[in-house]
């Protein structure tokens, strides 16, 4: 990873320790730290304290778009080249509801993915990483200039990190 800022990387085996560490780091006034976890852990996440992800807006918008475009498409196409089948009305809504429904789901889902991608990449921060973070360790990386690293290192140590390492 190029352009990664220097900082302190700590690994935790215990979830409560990790949560504690997060709070410590926040007290030290750091906001742009990164927490790694093999599973979404409520305790840690609440310590970090993010607001609810805005992805849901994407889902809503996508769903609505699908529904409306479904209606518009079926109706317009029915009248653009009017052909009668089975003595039914040209634009008969009941069958079209199915198309509307399917498009609702389809666009809803795709929009959700788009939202997921968009927001994760937008909130991406370059940070140091250790492969064990997807296995059984929780990690915290605090980017900080060299002169303050000692302090952070100590705080994390006290919080109960199993190991702490300084990244240049």
């Amino acid at each position, binding site marked *: 990873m190029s352009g990664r800022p220097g900082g302190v990387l700590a690994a935790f085996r215990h979830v409560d320790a990790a949560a504690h560490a997060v709070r410590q780091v926040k007290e030290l006034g750091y906001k742009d730290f990164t927490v790694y976890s093999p599973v979404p852990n409520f305790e840690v996440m609440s310590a970090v304290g993010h607001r609810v*992800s805005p*992805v849901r807006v994407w889902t809503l918008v996508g*769903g609505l778009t699908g529904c409306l475009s479904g209606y518009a498409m079926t109706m317009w196409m029915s009248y653009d080249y009017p052909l009668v089948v089975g003595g039914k009305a040209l634009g008969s809504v009941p069958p079209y509801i199915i*198309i509307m429904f*399917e498009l609702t789901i*389809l666009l809803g889902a795709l929009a959700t993915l788009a939202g997921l991608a968009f927001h994760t990449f937008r909130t991406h921060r370059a940070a140091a990483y250790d492969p064990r973070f997807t296995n059984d360790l929780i990690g915290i990386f605090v980017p900080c200039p060299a002169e303050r690293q000692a302090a952070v290192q100590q705080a994390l140590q006290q919080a109960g990190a199993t190991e702490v390492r300084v990244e240049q």
Partner: protein
Amino acid sequence: MAAVARPEPVRVPPTYSEITHDIAATLGRPGRTWYILLGFAISVMLLGAIALLYQIRYGLGVAGYRPPVMWGVYITTFVFWVGIAHSGTLVSAILYLFRSAWRTAVYRTAEVMTVFAVLTAGLFPLIHVGRIWYAYWLVPYPNQRQLWVNFKSPLLWDVFAVTTYLTVSTCFLIVGLIPDVAAARDVATGWRKKLYSITSLAWRGTDQQWRHYTRAYLYLAALATPLVLSVHSVVSWDFAMSIVPGWHTTIFAPYFVAGAIYSGCALVITLLVPLRKAFKLERYIHEDHFENLAKLLLLTGMLVGYAYAVEYFIAWYSGNEAERASFYNRAFGPYWWATWTMIICNGFLPLFLWFKKIRRSIPAMFLLSLFINLGMWFERFVIIVVSLSFEYEPYAMGHYTPSWVDWSVLAGSFGWFFMWFLLFAKNFPMVSIAEVKEIIPMPRKEDAHA
């Protein structure tokens, strides 16, 4: 659905690193059996492909069609595979919303099965049309002919339903895979490491990633749930919307959905049993999971059995001559054997599941699941072929027998399915690493001190 199993206390839960290790271990270099199985699957698929090419060259006549039976093995198999596809999303999405812990060990298998089943099912509408090279006309795209498609046709609903379902369930699978692939990446070596580095989409499990991920996953599940129910309803309307005696029934949507989940769960079991052996996952997939699946089977099985009964009742109660004759013909006509196969396999055999012994006996479950799959295929055969062979116009009735082409394509579809399944199973974690960990509490310092 609320039937969530309590893991028995004696069982020691594995640690996170054990989980990662055990599951990552399934991704090692394949053994001989795997290659043999794959080779077999591919050759069966090729047989189907050859039959299909032959059919495209000379026309549908090479299949066994006999007017008035204009839909035969192909549509039967289509419905069969679409049905199979249902349990996957059910287990992964619906049970997710229900927060039922036991799904974590099996949902990946179910989901993979779903995606490949839809992939297989999706082929059949193409295989069965007379002019496959014009099949794209079913898509509403602007063309110089200035023509559009007929949205009143249930077949078009199918086009939308099936494509949507394929897309959504694939997304769902991929999203679920990301953290696991990342985990695998971090323990893998060699070319697999490269593969996983790419497919894990730079996942590291940061707080931000989890933040959006968990939400997105929740909404996908929320969207997938109604979708599951809708897709097979739509498929059932292919029949319910027509006037064919034996098809024209309001009960079809719930009836088909129940049947779909039924057959799906059955195939999940059929797949899990060998998988668990081969991958030594006994520690993760055990009797509890089978029992829960068994309970699902029992529930849906009873629903299906009920539907059978209601069909006959309504046929009688409606007083409609054609309906009555059609159902009489099902049970006692030339296709009696198909009908009774279906009734016995789907209606009576699941009754054994009332016994806990059976539910927890893995060989028994395996055997049962095979019978149910057979029965469910015949259910579709009976509904489609037998109804068509005995319609309104007595003079135009006729008896249909599939030809070698039909059978080859049917077999080929299984080859195709298992080819994908095997390829996937050996290259991506068949048990969700992250989610299995999720249900096991992380170690806490105070516990350690205490």
